[in-house]
């Protein structure tokens, strides 16, 4: 796109940024014409957020520069970005939770050393904006009491209140139902009408194709391609994103489900604040099948995994597993569940699956550290652990195959391999597995998918949680859909398609007749 007559709303030249050992951005160039919606896609860890945070002055680039409306601007902090008319809605909201919407909006733009006047003016201005962009919200609500959808609106209002002409949204739909997402896009269009330039980050191809004018693709910290959305398609983008042809399906034979290994009956769970996170979830998991759990992230999948694996205690209901009945009164913790041959690959390897400060061989026994294999009466058998770790690294092609390397220094994919190897090699009866391929490169993805299927074929029962619909549909034999902590639908993998699942995930399947769809 060589549109040189009018200057670009924003233009990046050779932006680079490294975090310690990670080259998050490398010589990035980007040109965004005024009044367009520009998509940026890329895998997890590709460097999208980093790049946006640099534009917004949250991080400082190691090299390169930024032009706004043809003028070189020197953005060293968010203040200067705001001055340059840039606003950003962060992937993880930047809100003070115990402040009201109003306080959050004026923070940093109070207008005067004493709040009184500023607050008053802000109120009127906000009501105006809310009307203009149909962003209605009660400005006196405390943010932590708002649903995520509305919290996002607060973020958008913050940007608009500061008169942003360029609006960056980092994975705004990650937390939204497809239907909420549609409303968001309508807002974006009206912003576009007003001449606002929008930078939209996502790795959902559907949204890109549906709503952007141009799209740029990032991979491994580099900008690998620019396309006019009209001139491209899902397959091309997917290929660009991951660098080689994607197999969206896994070749697997039909499931031969055996008897039930794990069953949950009306399981509910309340969190510390007393909010009901799981609502009477019931499910049956049979040997030799893969049960997929679909849902927008944050609708109880994590809680379900935690309760099933014994990390958190359930509040109501009961679980039957390996002949034992587990309920609020007779709970079992994670290690007890392991002893009963349940393995668990957690959703977030950094937060849960690993201790990044440990050497690989230590991390490779996490959860099994009490087992007699590794322990004498008093002391642990270091050598046994190291040797076993060596073998597994070889078997699972972990690179580098060095048991003494700090876990943190393995790449995301290799870390994931270490975790999956640890759990699978225990030869469990039931395997709970969350986001198995998050932030994992395509080669590793195939490998992992095949492992899961072959595990199923050896008669294990597998419960798969993933936010990637493709992954769910490709692997599962049966699919449960979760919404707001409850199971709202079950269907056979064969009858599943994105639209149906999308509606179920929005708990709006009944509206189907009104033909509500993306």
């Amino acid at each position, binding site marked *: 796109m060589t549109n040189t007559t009018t200057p670009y709303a924003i233009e990046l030249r050779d932006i680079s940024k490294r*975090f*310690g*050992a*990670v080259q998050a951005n490398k010589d990035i160039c980007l040109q965004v014409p005024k009044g367009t919606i520009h998509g940026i896609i890329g895998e997890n860890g590709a460097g999208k957020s980093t790049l946006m945070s640099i534009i*917004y*002055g*949250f*991080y400082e680039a190691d090299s390169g520069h930024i032009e706004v409306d043809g003028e070189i601007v020197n953005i060293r*902090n*968010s*203040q*200067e*970005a*705001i001055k340059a008319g840039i606003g*950003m809605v*962060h992937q993880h909201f*930047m*809100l*003070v*939770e*115990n*402040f009201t919407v109003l*306080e*959050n909006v*004026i*923070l*940093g*733009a*109070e207008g*005067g*050393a*004493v*709040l*009184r006047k*500023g607050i008053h003016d802000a109120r009127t201005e906000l009501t105006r904006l809310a009307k203009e962009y149909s962003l209605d919200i009660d400005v006196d609500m405390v943010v932590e009491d708002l649903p995520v959808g509305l919290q996002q609106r607060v973020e958008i209002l*913050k940007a608009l209140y500061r008169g942003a002409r360029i609006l960056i949204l980092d994975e705004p739909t990650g937390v939204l139902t497809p239907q909420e997402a549609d409303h968001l896009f309508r807002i974006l269009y009206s912003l576009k009408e007003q001449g606002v330039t929008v930078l939209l980050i996502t790795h959902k191809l559907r949204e890109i194709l549906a709503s952007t004018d141009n799209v740029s693709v990032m991979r491994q910290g580099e900008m690998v391609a620019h396309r006019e959305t009209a001139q491209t398609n899902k397959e091309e983008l997917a290929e660009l994103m991951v660098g080689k042809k994607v197999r969206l399906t896994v070749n697997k034979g039909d499931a031969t489900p055996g008897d039930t290994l794990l069953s949950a009956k009306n399981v509910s769970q309340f969190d510390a604040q007393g909010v009901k996170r799981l609502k009477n979830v019931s499910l049956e998991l049979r040997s030799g099948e893969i049960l997929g759990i679909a849902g927008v992230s944050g609708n109880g999948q994590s809680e379900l995994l935690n309760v099933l694996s014994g990390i958190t205690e359930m509040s109501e209901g009961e679980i039957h597993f390996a002949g034992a009945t587990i309920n609020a009164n007779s709970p079992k913790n994670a290690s007890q569940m392991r002893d009963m041959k349940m393995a668990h690959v957690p959703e977030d390897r950094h937060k849960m699956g690993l201790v990044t400060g440990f050497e690989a061989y230590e991390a490779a026994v996490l959860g099994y550290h009490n087992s007699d294999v590794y322990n004498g009466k008093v002391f642990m058998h270091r050598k046994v652990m190291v040797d076993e770790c060596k073998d597994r690294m070889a078997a699972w092609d972990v690179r580098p195959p060095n048991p003494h390397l700090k876990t943190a220094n393995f790449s995301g994919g290799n870390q994931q391999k270490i975790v999956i190897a640890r759990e699978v090699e225990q030869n469990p009866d039931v395997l709970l597995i969350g986001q198995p391929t998050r932030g994992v490169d395509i080669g590793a993805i195939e490998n992992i998918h095949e492992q899961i299927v072959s595990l199923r074929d050896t008669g294990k029962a597998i419960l798969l949680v993933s936010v990637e619909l493709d992954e769910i549909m490709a692997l599962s034999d049966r699919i449960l859909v979760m919404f707001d902590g409850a199971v709202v639908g079950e269907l056979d993998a064969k009858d599943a398609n994105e639209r149906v699942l999308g509606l179920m995930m929005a708990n709006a399947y009944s509206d189907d007749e009104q033909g509500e769809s993306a």
Partner: protein
Amino acid sequence: MYDTLIQMLDATMRVSTPLILAALAGLYSERAGIVDISLEGKILGSAFAAAAASAVFGSAWVGLIFGIMASVMLALIHGFACITHRGDHIVSGVAINTIVAGMTVTLGLHWFNLGGQTPALTGNERFLDITLPFAHAMQNVPVIGQIYTHLLSGHNILVYLAFFMVPVTYWVIYKTRFGLRLRAVGENPQAVDTAGISVTWIRYRAVIVCGILCGVAGAYLSTAHNAGFLKDMSAGKGYMALAALIFGKWRPVPVMFACLLFGFLDAVAVRLQGFVIPGLGEVPVQAIESLPYVLTVLLLAGFIGKAIGPKAVGRPYVKERA
């Protein structure tokens, strides 16, 4: 009876003053996310600086200024460690307390050769009690006269300043831009940062204010409540202020009442030393002395209400991992 009560409360005001100042100091610091157990050290440092300066220059006010400067300097060290270098707040606090404890005596000994004390202060070298207008006239008015003349009147200026700082702090924290940002930075520094405000600068301002107030507290000890500096004269007041801060749940007015309560207990303990209740025997003063700490522990344990501090308190603000 009524007289003794007035008398106790009067003492309570005197004893609470440094607690209130220090606790409010801590409030600014912790509301901005900086844990400050170096209140103790700041009070001690300022007490020494104030007494020394006042002895040398013959003016309590000069002493006050030096006290504040010393305390602010310590606060800046704390800030440098915790804000600029993401150091552990507790460790930094312990360091400062330790350094000050040793430094005051060492310098004092060198300068005044009085075993670490400063010379006794007299006249203008101290903040003297001031009598409020009509105090004498009011004397004989029943009840309120007592209260006005013997309780409210006849304290030194710093006492009144301390109590005046309570509404001021309330206003600053809840009604001003600085306060809004201060609270925000203690809850979610990232949000503040992305709003285009420098987290660092806000936090530095917070610790400076903290330093100033501790400075006043220290000066009060050595140039108002007492007449000169003695080694370790802060005697745990900083920690007790911290306790009061928690006990008041990081809110100005409750914090003041916590300080008054602790001060009252102290005043009681002093007078009950060696006091024998017929039948019961001697009062275990130590029990009363440790009551503030016990109460605070009970509160922290959630047996009397729940103390939930600022979310980001004690956590250094780090943008970039690795």
